[in-house]
């Protein structure tokens, strides 16, 4: 149980790490960045012909192009790796103030499988590779199979919206308050939210309410994603374009 002593030391390391500066925070979009993957449906029963559709979201700087292709992830010990295939012509871009949102759809054909009785579900691993210029982003994730009759087969994705700011009328542009609204109907589902911004820093990109500091002037954008940790579902990304 040396782990206890190690974790106590963790407190000191967290303190030290917190004191280190980084000019490359998680929340800032300055290069090819995966935003999320929305599976449809959220869960399936194993049956012949069953397929998941995976919608991939990524952000890239204006003018950049993205190529998407299927990949494999054999590193996971907790899910069965299953290949996916790109839906031809499904790639598209949505232009925003300082970036473009890339979307593409992939299909995962569910092979004949049995669900282990001890866990009650089976996780299938997908892997997708995005490229933009010299940059590369490998995206992995799980979809899940549940037995026939499971309530999971009726799960719906969470909903999410940006509550604050509502428009570009922001008084204090050095400290911009961000608030999210979200909901889910899945019992026992913990939602994980993620904020992305195109400049500056966020105090806490996982918080429902946070502060956006040192945002740049001119056109800027905020992205909110909300996903279910139990279901793996993703609410469509919410994007707010601002002129600061």
């Amino acid at each position, binding site marked *: 149980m*040396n782990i206890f002593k190690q*974790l106590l030391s963790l407190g*000191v390391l967290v303190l030290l790490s917190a004191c280190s500066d980084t000019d*490359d925070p998680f929340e800032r979009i300055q290069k090819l960045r995966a935003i*999320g993957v929305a599976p449809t449906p959220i869960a399936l029963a194993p049956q012949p012909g069953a397929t998941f559709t995976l919608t991939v979201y990524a952000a890239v700087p204006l003018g950049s192009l993205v190529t998407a292709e299927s990949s494999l992830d054999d*590193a996971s*010990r907790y899910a069965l790796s299953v290949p996916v295939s790109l839906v031809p012509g499904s790639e598209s871009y949505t232009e925003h103030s300082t970036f473009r949102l890339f979307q593409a759809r992939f299909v995962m054909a569910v092979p004949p499988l049995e669900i282990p009785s001890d866990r009650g579900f089976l996780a299938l691993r997908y892997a997708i590779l995005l490229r933009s210029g010299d940059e590369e982003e490998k995206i992995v994730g799980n979809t899940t199979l549940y037995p026939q009759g499971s309530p999971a087969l009726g799960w719906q994705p969470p909903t999410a919206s940006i509550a604050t700011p509502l428009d570009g009328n922001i008084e204090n542009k050095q400290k911009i308050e961000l608030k999210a609204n979200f909901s889910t109907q899945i019992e026992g589902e913990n939602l994980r939210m993620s904020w992305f911004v195109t400049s500056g820093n966020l105090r806490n990109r996982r918080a429902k309410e946070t502060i956006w500091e040192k945002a740049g002037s001119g056109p800027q954008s905020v992205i909110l994603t909300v996903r279910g940790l139990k279901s793996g579902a993703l609410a469509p990304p919410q994007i707010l374009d601002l002129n600061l």
Partner: protein
Amino acid sequence: MYSKNPWYLWLGLSLSALFNLTFLGTAVQAAPKSVGENPVTIKVRVKGQGDGLSRVEVKVGGQKLFTDPQGELKVTLPKEGNLEFYRRGYDPLVVSVKDLMGGDSKEVFLFPATPSGDEIVVTGVRRPEVSRKKIAVEEAVKVAPGGDPAQVPKLLPGVQSNNFSPEVVVRGSGPQESRYKVDDWAVPYIFHSIGNISIIPDQLLGDVEFSSGGFGPQDGNATGGVISLKTKNGVPERNQTEFRVNIPIYSSIYHERAVSEGKGKLAVSARRSYIEKILPTILKKVNEERGMNLTVVPYFGDAHLYYEKPRDDGTVKILGLYSYDGLRLAFPTASAENEDGQGRFSIKDSVYLLGFQYTKNLGDNWSISTSPYVSDVDRKLDILSNRIYVGATSLALQGEATKRFSGKKRLFIGSEIIHYWGRADVFVPRPDFNDPFFDFEEAPKVKSKVTQSIDEIAAWTAYDFDVGPWFFSPGVRVNHSTRIKRSDVDPRLNGRYQINEDNQLKMAVGQYSNVPEFAEVAKDFGNQNLNFIKSYHYILGVETQWKPSWVTDFQAFYKETKNLVRSDPVTNYANKGERINFGAEAFIRRNLTARLFGWLSYTYSQNRERDNDQETYRNSQYDQTHILNLVGNYKLNAVWEAGGRLAYHTGDTFTPVDGAVYNANLDKYQQRNDPKTRFFSKRLPNYHQMSVYSTRDFLYDTWKLGLRFGIEFLAFSPQATNVQYNYDYSKEQYNTNVPPIPYIELRGVL
């Protein structure tokens, strides 16, 4: 005396002004009223204690008189002139007759003298075990990190330590592979997690014994080393109370007194941290400056009750100990599960111990020592939505009988029976230590609630004997554990060859066993068919006494450990890991004299490990190739001391991250490494640090105020303490944010 060194005088006066104290010279109480020939009783006392001082030579006119055992002297004062006071170990004092007039009795205080050069106070005791080192608390309390004697093994050969972990690694064996004891009572750990202090206050300690390997059969369930904190024996001559204020970590109170009509000793102490009160204020400023929401609340405390009664034919000791450590941590994290985006940790670790020790001479050169104890360890850990609550109550019955024969011949026969009532309530991801980047958010969780009773039984014998210049101590230990339902036998041998009066050749060879941890044999997530972890120690060394004040000790060691517990995809755990540690150590020691002591310790070691016998050996987790510690303390005069430590070691190993993938379910990046990349294949930069300190005693008539101040973590350049990555692991950088940390500690001794 003080005017000889202007720097000293300046500093002394500055501190005197700072604390509004007078410390120059000696005090004589009461002002004179008249001059004349008067009888008076003079009480000569020790400055800073108030104790009477016997056999003080007092020159009155042409007479030479001496104080009685209580430090008193009845004398008829002349009409004028001076009285002179002399005693070895104290500054001479001249007092005018005028200052002694005006009453029936007067008190005179003698100031402790500046020590004289090279008088040896304590030297290391040669012990049969070749790698055992004994450091007197007088030394350890001055130079050890935090002024805590229990930390002193970190400065000895064969020991690796890390700045932010209180644990020690002994000749490449992890902290859990060593044994920790207070006298003969086993404790799960001896260090508090913060504050650089052990769970036993230094005032209770007499010695710290440390064996880095090759120890005798009396110690089991350890394949690394043994750290033994020895309580201070003897009945105090005077009652004493000490208050200590350490800024910014903790405060303590300690009291010891003679009891049982002066034949016994009772000591009580309590310590409590207050850094948990100070840190939030500091963090509030950091949070505001950096726009963070960070909470770090470490805390600890302990309390002790100690009783000792020496008897004509033995000793009785009782120790009650309660110690706790904890940490509450909240910070923004990618793994946050709540709307506020904060991850929360809460850890609390506590241990109770009630130990009894009874030693008795039975006659016919037989003696026995029995030291039963009851202890309870409780550990509670909440991390995000996971929990680990584990604990164990144990009852140990142990004892050893010794028969002394002629010469150095001695026979030891001992046994111990420890019964554990273990308990666990866990809801955690199933660990996979084969995966260097195990992600607890993805792993399937295990829920288990178990109670378990187990016994660990051992018996041992050893026989010391000499043949001419040779000395041998063969022994054997038999172990049985119901935790793994197995028994084994560990033979061990220590030997010495007296080359000449000053040089000894020494060697040790032995087999050592360790029982796997509770979690590794747990019903739901362990493997109940595990075996003992086995280690084989081979040590060869030479010890030289150059002069009474200088000793050197050079050793070479080879250690092979098998049956290390490693994760297994089928059985959860298996005894399939192996490790090899070998190297050489040098220990050059200037023994404690009245003015100076110190040592230089150097260790060269190679530490290699593999997770199964199909692999080739790689760096182990603990592999500091070179470790150097230079330690020194100098007593400037009776009240000032100064010292410091210089530490250098090869950078710690770590497993590099070769890349990362974005996990869309969790919205975070997960590390990946190339299968060709070996665990612990990279190193942090080599590390060095210095610590300097000074102590000053302010002596009042009947009490003393001690001041210790210093700076930790001094370095010639910023030192890397750990490696950290940016969010997608595309940038690797070292954390070099530890600044020099000043501290100050006040000790009031009444």
